[in-house]
């Protein structure tokens, strides 16, 4: 394949990665923005979403679209409830102290991951996509005979991947409407601005925190259900999304939602493109190191406003 079509293919892959990443990172960002805590177990909620999707589709059988459709709704809900429960019994008790929350969520990470290992097992298990048509893509070239449209061999994607991109856009819009137009969303944002004042005005901050923690985990799970037909469910699959989501949230500016979206696009696209052209390990080394440097020298994020 020529360079041009190759780049286009890489960009498409990047777009799919971005789509999943934006949902996962949004979850992490909302939790940090409102509750001011870092949830290290976020990747495990992602993994749980994928594993639950496998259970649900296997249990229901029938047409893949049926199981997938149910999983798309039920898995995030279950994960969200579990997270809200964990918030009640663990995080609330330690008063959301930032340091202790990190330690507690590290504990939660291992509990979720290892329980999955004991029940789901160490194998990677596939979930069938609800639909999966191969779509060849055209390429335009300016050759000897003027402008021509060609169909390079290998330049193709699937209908499912396009669906993932579309679904992420829809969810993002829904989330935006939820946060800006609904009462619960407004309460969440009020709590984010100033939890003490919110409390003084009768906002049940404790409950809001549980909702937010559940919402954050649910978003990660949703991303995982979407990705599981492309990438199989495995008990260790939460690690990379956690790291990438961290990177996105840091670049975008901790707790800034628009920053998170832009950063997810940036990271997802470059991850897709870089790993097509370069050694993935080297790409990861550079990315991880650069992110650490961003935190050191611009803690408000690359896209955040300058120091307060």
């Amino acid at each position, binding site marked *: 394949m020529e360079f041009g079509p190759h780049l286009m293919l890489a960009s498409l892959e990047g777009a799919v990665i971005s789509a999943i990443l934006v949902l996962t990172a949004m979850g992490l960002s909302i939790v940090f923005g409102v509750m001011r805590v870092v949830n290290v177990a976020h990747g495990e909620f992602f993994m749980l979403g994928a594993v639950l999707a496998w259970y649900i589709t296997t249990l229901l059988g029938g047409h893949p679209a049926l199981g997938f459709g149910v999983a798309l709704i039920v898995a995030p809900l279950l994960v969200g409830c579990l997270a809200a429960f964990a918030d009640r019994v663990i995080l609330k008790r330690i008063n959301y102290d930032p340091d202790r929350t990190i*330690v507690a969520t590290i*504990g939660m990470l291992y509990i979720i991951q290892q329980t999955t290992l004991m029940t789901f097992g160490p194998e990677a298990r596939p979930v069938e996509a609800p639909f999966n048509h191969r779509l060849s893509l055209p390429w335009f070239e300016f050759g000897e005979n003027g402008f021509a449209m060609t169909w390079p061999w290998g330049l193709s994607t699937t209908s499912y991947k396009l669906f993932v991109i579309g679904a992420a856009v829809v969810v993002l819009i829904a989330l935006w409407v939820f946060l800006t137009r609904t009462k619960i969303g407004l309460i969440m944002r009020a709590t984010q601005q100033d939890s003490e004042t919110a409390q003084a005005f009768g906002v049940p901050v404790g409950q809001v925190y549980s909702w937010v923690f559940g919402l954050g985990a649910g978003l990660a799970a949703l991303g995982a259900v979407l990705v599981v037909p492309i990438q199989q469910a495995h008990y260790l699959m939460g690690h990379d999304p956690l790291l990438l989501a961290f990177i996105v949230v840091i670049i975008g500016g901790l707790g800034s939602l628009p920053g998170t979206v832009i950063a997810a696009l940036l990271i997802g696209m470059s991850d897709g493109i870089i790993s097509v052209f370069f050694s993935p390990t080297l790409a990861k080394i550079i990315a991880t190191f650069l992110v650490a440097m961003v935190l050191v020298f611009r803690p408000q994020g690359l896209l955040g406003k300058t120091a307060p």
Partner: protein
Amino acid sequence: MTSFNKSNLLHFGVLAGLVILFFILPTYHVGVLSRVMVMAIYAMGFNLLFGYTGLLSLGHAMFFAAGMYGFGLAIKFGGFPVPAAFVVGVLSAALLALVVGLLALRTAGVAFMIVTLMFAQTAYLVVLYFGKYTRGDEGFILQQAERSLFGLDVTTETGRYFTAFTLFAVCFIALAKLVQTPFGKRLVAIRENEERARMLGYDAGRYKLYALVISGAVSGLAGVSYALLFGYVGATFSTVQYSIFPLLWVLLGGAGTTIGPFIGVLFMFYLIDISSGYTNAYMLIAGVVLVLLTVFAPKGIAGTLKARVFPWMP
């Protein structure tokens, strides 16, 4: 008896107990204890930074690994004699800690945790990237002949136990003394109230850097000891999990106490040892213990004892 004498007695008692245990324990447990002592060095290095200075690093595995690889590679590719390689290992860790400190200490709190985590992740990936030398996840073995320390065979059960014991004892006593010096007390002051410490004329940034370098060097020394005594060098030791372990040990044993790290490692080793007989998901225990500790006993075993029963405890 003054509390100073009492704590000396406690430290001496721990060391004497370890010598006696060698003669009465069956071989299997002697082997476990050797490992516990080496990992306790790691935990003590971590404790200086976390327990005494109040800085939570989530990337200490990079210092352990720096020591381990500094030592292992110096022997494998540099043909260094063991004592020289030992020094190379510890210095690599100290140097890495210096560089990481100069950068990461510009941040504080949650950002410091994430930055150290990211640096450690970078270090882990670097180990994988240079798999040609490091042999990546698979790691490499140091042969018996490559590990003789001043003619001493550290591969026998006895040689290994007493080498581990000596290294442990030196670090244990040295760190216990260090935290009693004015320097150590200033670290505690920074942990308690950094701004107040600064407004008493202490250069908090510099003290934190020193603490990180010493902590990194001790953690590196643990890595060197591990490679020396168990003959294995591998990327596993630079994974996130090995950054979490010292936190777990220190929290369990009691942060900011001299014997906490050792107690924590001892408990956790036997907890995992026993539970891995039943399941391969033994890290579940670690998770449960972490959550229970943060919620119910943030001071750990030694910390709770100190608060409730023995206020003199160091």
